[in-house]
């Protein structure tokens, strides 16, 4: 039985009548009518739902229903990000000229000044974030879409120059429609001017973090926005050079959903991280802390227990056994060591060219309180994760990301620690199209001259060029049952004997075990493993690694850049 319309919607008995019979007061004029006061509710631009305006504020200017981001006033942003009362504004009154004599422009500016209470589209100055001093720039989209005219360019340039001089990091919260059309070619020149200032800042070894917010487009994207040592973005922000409408009109096609959004850029390798608004302050503080130039205190490694190999692992396993052990499903993978050996890890994504390759995880972390760059070839724990990580087989984008992070480490003087575990570089159509060979070659080329200590540890499979591209190091270490070879035994058998089934035999002749390689002088150290090596007994190995990594850093970090490069050169020169 359906009830639909079985009960008539009755327009009720006259109210006054019933009220009177009850002897109660009838509606009078003083009773205020129910209504929603102005400003109590607002509409979310994203989900279109009505939301309580107050909730938007407490939710860091995001929609409490769909979590969509609202654009923020510069002033609010500064309040949200910096320590209370730490902000000191600079260059407030640079006058905006009208270089083209564009009609109506000065009037428009006046109107905006009145409406927004701002002089121009960016606020710059000095501030601190959780005690870390920075030079800060924050764009405000209410002022001519935060387009970059001469004043915006000048304010950024001055701020960067002062930061370079004062050896302070620069953080810019970017949003912009692009260059300011009303100022014509003068506006275009601001792209070059700001980029040049940032180049000097970078050459002076100083940090620049750009935070891309909705929307970041046009000439701003093509200049200071994309030049951060570290580029962060808010979720869902539109980021691109040409605006989506322009592209659609030009190519006559509808653009896919999510095109030019932060997540799209992360996938395509152009930004390091997407950071939620509520986490922004702490993440920035953490990154800044890891880039502080003062000497960090060196902790002694005394509390680390030396690994005692009592597992009776002495009976020598065959080379083939070791190949199989190195590929065991429950063997610890790169991310496990990372967790065990390092703290405060912050992952940075992308090669800044094409893609973020999940087969390589990289970023900065601390090792015994000291900042280091960590780059790991990442196998997964299960098939699902392995599919995401492409079974630890990096693409050219992965190697380019690794190199980018090594160069970043070089700039900020951090040791580089690579964990190698790959069946080999990814073999596929796209990999060739994007230059797998070139990417590996470039890493060998650049790594040989890196001016900071580089340590590579083979923790599982060291498959050929794919492994070497992260192992042109000052020292290369291996775990007892890891392997390192020109090719997989299957491939070796197939090439030389035209029969991949003879892999077991191939393993025997290839000299791919850690002991073989140690004897041949290819690697410097070999670490014993427990009999059945899994996450459960990871500490047995990682404790030992921790101890030796500290020794490595102590030994190499005081060498000059030339000394390091020369030693590395000779290391491979001798092979």
């Amino acid at each position: 039985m359906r009830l639909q319309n079985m009960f008539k919607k009755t327009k009720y008995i006259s109210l006054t009548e019933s009220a009177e019979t009850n002897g109660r007061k009838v509606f009078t004029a003083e009773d205020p009518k129910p209504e929603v006061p102005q400003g109590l509710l607002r509409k979310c631009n994203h989900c279109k739902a009505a939301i309580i305006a107050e909730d938007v504020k407490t939710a860091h200017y995001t929609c409490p229903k769909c979590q969509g981001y609202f654009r923020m006033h510069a002033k609010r942003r500064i309040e949200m990000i910096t320590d209370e009362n730490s902000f000191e504004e600079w260059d407030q009154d640079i006058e905006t000229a009208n270089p083209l004599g564009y009609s109506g422009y000065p009037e428009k500016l006046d109107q905006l000044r009145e409406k927004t209470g701002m002089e121009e589209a960016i606020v710059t100055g000095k501030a601190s974030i959780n005690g870390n001093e920075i030079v800060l720039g924050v764009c405000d989209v209410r002022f001519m879409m935060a387009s970059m005219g001469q004043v915006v360019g000048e304010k950024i340039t001055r701020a960067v120059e002062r930061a370079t001089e004062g050896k302070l990091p620069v953080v810019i919260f970017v949003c912009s429609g692009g260059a300011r059309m009303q100022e014509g070619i003068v506006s275009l020149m601001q792209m070059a001017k700001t980029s040049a200032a940032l180049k000097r800042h970078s050459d002076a070894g100083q940090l620049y973090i750009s935070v891309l917010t909705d929307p970041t487009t046009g000439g701003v994207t093509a200049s200071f926005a994309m030049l951060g040592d570290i580029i962060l973005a808010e979720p869902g922000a539109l980021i691109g050079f040409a605006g989506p409408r322009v592209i659609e009109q030009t190519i006559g096609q509808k653009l896919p959903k999510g095109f030019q959004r932060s997540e799209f850029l992360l996938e395509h390798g152009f930004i390091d991280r997407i950071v939620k608004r509520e986490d922004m302050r702490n993440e920035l503080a953490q990154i800044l802390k890891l880039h502080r130039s003062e000497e960090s205190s060196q902790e002694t490694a005394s509390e680390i227990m030396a690994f005692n190999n009592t597992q009776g692992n002495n009976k020598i396993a065959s080379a083939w056994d070791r190949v199989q052990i190195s590929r065991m499903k429950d063997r610890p993978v790169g991310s496990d060591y990372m967790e065990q050996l390092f703290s405060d890890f912050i992952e940075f994504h992308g090669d800044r060219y094409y893609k973020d390759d999940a087969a390589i995880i990289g970023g900065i972390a601390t090792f015994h309180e000291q900042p280091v760059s960590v780059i790991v070839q990442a196998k997964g724990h299960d098939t699902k994760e392995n599919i995401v990580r492409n079974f630890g087989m990096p693409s050219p984008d992965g190697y380019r990301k690794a190199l980018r992070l090594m160069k970043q480490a070089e700039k900020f003087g951090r040791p580089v620690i690579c964990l190698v575990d790959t069946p080999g570089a990814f073999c596929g159509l796209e990999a060739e199209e994007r230059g797998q060979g070139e990417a590996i070659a470039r890493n060998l080329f650049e790594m040989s001259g890196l001016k900071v200590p580089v340590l590579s540890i083979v923790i599982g499979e060291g498959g050929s060029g794919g492994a070497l591209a992260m192992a042109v190091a000052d020292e290369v270490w291996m775990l007892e049952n890891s392997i390192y070879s020109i090719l997989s035994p299957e491939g070796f058998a197939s090439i030389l004997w035209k029969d991949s089934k003879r892999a077991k035999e191939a393993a025997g002749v290839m000299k791919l075990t850690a002991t073989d390689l140690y004897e041949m002088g290819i690697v410097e150290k070999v670490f014993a493993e427990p009999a059945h090596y899994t996450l459960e007994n990871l500490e047995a190995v990682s404790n030992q690694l921790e101890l030796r990594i500290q020794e490595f850093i102590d030994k190499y970090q005081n060498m000059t850049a030339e000394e390091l490069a020369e030693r590395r050169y000779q290391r491979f020169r001798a092979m």
Partner: protein
Amino acid sequence: MINKVLVANRGEIAVRIIRACREMGIETVAVYSQADKEALHTQLADEAVCIGPAPSTESYLNMEAIISATVISGADAIHPGFGFLSENSKFVELCETCNITFIGPSADVIRKMGHKSQARNTMTAAGVPVIPGSKEAVADVETGKQIAAEVGYPVIIKAALGGGGKGMRVAAAPEDFEGSFQTAKKEAGMAFGDETMYIEHFVEHPRHVEFQILADNYGNIIHLGERDCSVQRNHQKMIEESPCAALSEELRSKMGDAAVQAAKAAGYTNAGTIEFLLEKNGNFYFMEMNTRIQVEHPVTEWVTGIDLIKEQILIASGEKLSYRQEDIVLTGHAIECRINAENPAKGFRPSPGTITDMYLPGGKGVRIDSAIYSGYTIPPYYDSMIAKLIVYAKNREEAIRKMRCALGEIIIEGIDTNVDYQYEILRHPDYCAGDIDVEFIEKMSAE
């Protein structure tokens, strides 16, 4: 003055409120989710407004939509029922801002009584007995252990924002303390996003006895006697009755006075409930105040003859209480069984679905508050309570017999219900003897 009420709830309580309004000549507006288009409350009200998709976070908890529906439909008051937004102080504040009469207490009182430690402090100050326990939040195991020793084992560890048994653990002895504390804390963090924990002396084998309060806007407060809600499973009540078999007239008046005192201290208005734990020796302790109408309000209605929903509306309209304490006399005995769409044999798993056929009992002293009908499909999104069966007779023994008869007559086809399980309780010798406490169900299940 209230001319039109928006009922911000669903199920039997929404129907109950619509009926009361209709009797009073007040127009009603139902709100419903997309899953409740066919629900009885949607059909029965004078007007109905769809406020969002099935999940209650997007519909019955969607404050903005409910406020908008109220303003658009021209209702001047909201009755929140129980659950959903009924004890949400922010929602009440919104109503106040929008000149909408909220049928219930003020935002301030709800906030104060909703925070357990604040409620407790208010009660201590008013001289209402509370269970000995930590005065401040307990951050770590060591401090906790110390306090536990002071208040005396067994102790119960509770989340400040807890409810429904979540974030709650008992430690019988010092060696259990650490484990219980950590589990409760973790649970609280997950369920409420707040790990503020409190420790109390654990009252052994207590009865759950609560007092119904009515308070008008002019400082007149009375109590309508008690309800014994000791029959609970996982802190969820199953059977409630009034009066409580363990209360002498003297103890009733003592507890009733304490309840009125508690409501006064809270600055309470409208209908509310003070929950006590009653020990065998007659000691009782304030547990919490529920700042809303309760599921089990019909048993009080029957033994006092007062329509609580109507009283709520009258109080919210600014009327003075028309009863004094001496007018309240409990007559006879009422019992309520909650009928849930669930399967007791499968761990009380909810059993939504279509009711293919049904027959509900009637007769003298039998009342059914429900929102189901033949052909109705119970949606899976909400509480599994589908009906309340309430019986009334001159004494407890007769009421139990009447309840057994009524339960025996119920036919609900197409879904599983707990009717047979309720019948088992009604036949249990301890229940029949009135020998119950909050562990009754646990003991019965173990038999």
